[in-house]
């Protein structure tokens, strides 16, 4: 089992979610985050004082899936979340050892 974490633009959440669910990926969890990277922050002005804010709003999508789906899902996210401009975001993949469904008690891949 793998965890795929994608940090994307907030405006892309709906399309990514829809695309995933069209491909049968229904389980996912979303967190509101702020982040920085190559994308420059923005300047805000309050009563004539400028603040540079480096951390930009993003959303993080987490999907835990069987190993065999990883590639496809990365493909989908990449396609949907891309604008080609700096700030499109990152995807990280890591190992998950086990999963449980609280309701049924199912474990392992059954739990997904």
């Amino acid at each position, binding site marked *: 089992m793998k965890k795929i974490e994608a940090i994307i633009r907030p405006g892309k959440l709906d399309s990514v979610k829809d695309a995933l669910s069209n491909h049968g990926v229904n389980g996912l969890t979303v967190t*509101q985050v702020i982040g920085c990277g190559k994308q420059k922050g923005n300047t805000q002005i309050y009563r004539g004082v400028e603040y540079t804010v480096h951390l930009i709003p993003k959303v993080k999508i987490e999907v835990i899936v069987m190993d065999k789906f990883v590639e496809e899902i990365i493909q989908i996210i990449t396609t949907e979340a891309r604008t080609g401009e700096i700030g499109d975001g990152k995807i990280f993949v890591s190992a998950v050892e086990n999963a449980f469904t609280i309701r049924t008690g199912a474990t392992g891949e059954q739990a997904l």
Partner: protein
Amino acid sequence: MDTGDTGFIMICTALVFLMTPGLALFYGGMVRKKNVLSTLMHSWIIIGIMSLQWILVGFTLAFGPDHYGLIGGLDWLGLKGVGMEPNPDYAGTIPAILFMGFQMMFAVITPALISGSIAERMRFPAFIVFMLLWATFVYDPLAHWVWGVGGFLRELGALDFAGGNVVHISSGYSALIAALVLGKRNGFGKDSMAPHHVPMTVLGAGLLWFGWFGFNAGSSLGANGLAAMAFVNTNTAAAAAAISWVVVERLHRGKSTMLGAASGAVAGLVAITPGAGFVTPLSSIVIGLVGGAVCYLAISVIKAKFGYDDALDAFGCHGIGGTWGALATGIFATTSINPAGADGLIYGNSSLLGIQAMSVGITVMFTVAATFIILKLIALVMKLRVSEEQESNGLDLSLHGERAYSEFV
């Protein structure tokens, strides 16, 4: 001069003032988080601009000595001669400067109403230019036609107690045109555009209702029985429309919403505006009930059918509600409430309804054409709409360099 009338109209003026900051919140709660300040700014910058425009040229264009029934002369430019003595042509018991101030607040809120339809996508400089031109070439003449001594719609016998034509129909139809000219927001009909802060909208609606008492009761220009009648009618129609909106939405969608109750109340306030000083409280119930239902249907069914993006339903509430209100005045007006008015359809006089319809028609044709021309002219000189990137980042940040809420502790 009468101190009772003067004090009353002064407070009414303050109440009508409060409507625009109230409208800012009413609208601001309905947009997405990233656009709330730009939406508030629409109303606020209008308060600034129109207050000055009115003093400098607006008031004299609207109420100055008549030229051909079409426009006021420039005699009172910069308030020349508008002083502390009453002007009996308009209000014999209050200072002329107060009459000017009361009318100013109407000139402020009307363009602000339009801003609802173009929320979340218009460039700020274009917005300002549009509003200035609109106020000068649409609002001021129209106010003269309907309320100015010698104004041709006034001469026609059309009844408009507190501004159905001048305020609501004009802003509502202009809002529709502006929404069409600007086009839909990106993602319209696809992304969720749910209100980001419904309690803010509810607060705004509360302030609007409160201020509307000044708007309608104050339009009698004195603290008298007619004002009290207009006051009660105002409350009654708002209440009835709030109820009818949530009942209709319950039938249509299975649930009654808080946003619906607030929207219905505003629809009812719009609907009663032209007739507030001409109808009975019982008629106000009917005007409100129909007003709430009609606006709901316009917004949830007709808008969906035609697919224009009137973002915050400026047309749906003010255009439709105002039209119904003007016609309703033709149906329900009675000289038993206001001898200076006329009897409507249900009192056996069918001609008033025709006059009302005609005045609506003229107002609609004029504002639609003028708004279209103004926007197209501006578009020759500057872009009307923000770039796609600005729109997606939100207007608060991209136009104003601010964020409404800082999320972190």
